[in-house]
């Protein structure tokens, strides 16, 4: 059995690389696009300084709509867009497109929720000192919510490690796909157990690092 697993190693390395590619692109998109979207979602919300009901409704509706799709359906529905952006509709890069979209919407919501936890009085004090909206976002909201934001990103990364398994449908590959192809379709239980073990180690590592970083950032 060890021999069989050993012979599978090259494929496992490739799969690991594919998983990390998809996760890396997805999480980068989540932070770079979903982060600002979440901040905007918070600022136009009720009782905040840029309160704007139509904008809040529109953004909220967009985020909810993306999050309504079961991931496998989003993956397929988005194929034309994927072809436009990635130049192809198969492979890990292609799978990263729907993964990113889902991650952006998910993270935006998590960011909004975390910013809501910042005490209103602290924001008000910054206004009283003459801070601009941008300064309040960068120097108050992100500073005070940073531990929660790291934990949110941790949750997101682990969820999307799971989502990326579905990417096999469009030839995205990855560890989850390896488990499905060998373990599920070919009834090779040992391979399935092994890949799941790899995933467990990954998840534990991500959670451990996230929790640790969040604790170090939190001075409250």
């Amino acid at each position, binding site marked *: 059995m060890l021999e069989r697993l050993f012979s599978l190693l090259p494929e496992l390395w490739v799969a690991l690389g594919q998983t990390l590619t998809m996760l890396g692109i997805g999480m980068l998109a989540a932070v770079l696009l979903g982060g600002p979207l979440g901040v905007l979602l918070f600022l136009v919300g009720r009782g905040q300084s840029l309160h704007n009901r139509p904008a809040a409704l529109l953004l909220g509706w967009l985020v909810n709509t993306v999050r309504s799709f079961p991931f496998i359906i989003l993956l397929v529905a988005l194929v034309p867009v994927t072809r436009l952006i990635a130049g192809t509709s198969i492979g890990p890069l292609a799978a990263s497109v729907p993964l990113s979209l889902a991650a952006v919407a998910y993270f935006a919501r998590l960011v909004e929720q975390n910013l809501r936890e910042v005490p209103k*009085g602290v924001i008000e004090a910054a206004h*009283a000192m003459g801070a601009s909206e941008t300064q309040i976002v960068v120097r108050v909201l992100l500073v005070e919510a940073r531990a929660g934001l790291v934990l949110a990103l941790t949750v997101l990364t682990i969820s999307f490690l799971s989502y990326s398994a579905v990417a096999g449908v469009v030839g995205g590959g990855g560890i989850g796909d390896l488990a499905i192809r060998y373990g599920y379709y070919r009834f090779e239980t040992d391979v399935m157990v092994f890949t799941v073990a790899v995933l467990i180690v990954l998840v534990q590592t991500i959670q451990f690092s996230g929790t640790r970083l969040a604790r170090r*950032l939190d001075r409250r």
Partner: protein
Amino acid sequence: MMKPPLIELRHVGKTFTVAHGDAFHALRDVSLRIEQGAVFGLVGKSGAGKSTLLRTINLLERPDRGSVTVDGRELTALGKRELRAARQNIGMIFQQFNLLQNASVFDNVAFPLRLHAARAAQGTARVHECLALVGLSHKAHSYPAQLSGGQQQRVAIARALASRPAVLLCDEPTSALDPDTTRALLDTLRHINRELGVTIVIVSHSLPVLGAICDRVAVIEDGAVVEQFALNDTASPRKTALGRELAWHRREQATWEEALHA
């Protein structure tokens, strides 16, 4: 000609829409003049509008009607950018301190200086100066969660004074503190008023606090100023129950201090 007051509110009104579209008149046609160098108290029952009134002075609450002028600038006529600049001249402290929990004491006090590029250069020296003023130089590298309530409020005072404001607004500054800490904090405020000439406007529901520190008070009832008087003026009669009670606290305070110094 009379010197213009440092703070002048003219016919200020503010109406909130509450549940079912009903209107709540938080402030009704309030006019108020506060002289430079004064310690001015706003007193009233909860819900009377004293906090709302205080918050109109730096436009945290923008009035629907009337004008607010501070240090010769009509704030209600300013654009967003000009208002932000004008707010550097008005420090504020709060009941819940409202410090950044994830920033050190030093960074909290430096916060208002870093907002404006022009002041950032003189930052470090000014931060230490302000911390020394409130007696917390040794806590520069601590975080707010490691400090007592009284110490946190001192950091808030240092932060409010960093940009050298002419006015310090205090919204229930001692309500979260115990009596001993309250007394020490009031001493600090009095010191700031006398030594730095900072005009102080203070809202408190505590009559002993107001009696101890204010030169003048305005009694707010139902969103209007119903009476204002100098605390040293014991000759003229008081119109309101709160006014009479405050005069009594002032006399008590005086006898107590006399006994202490005898």
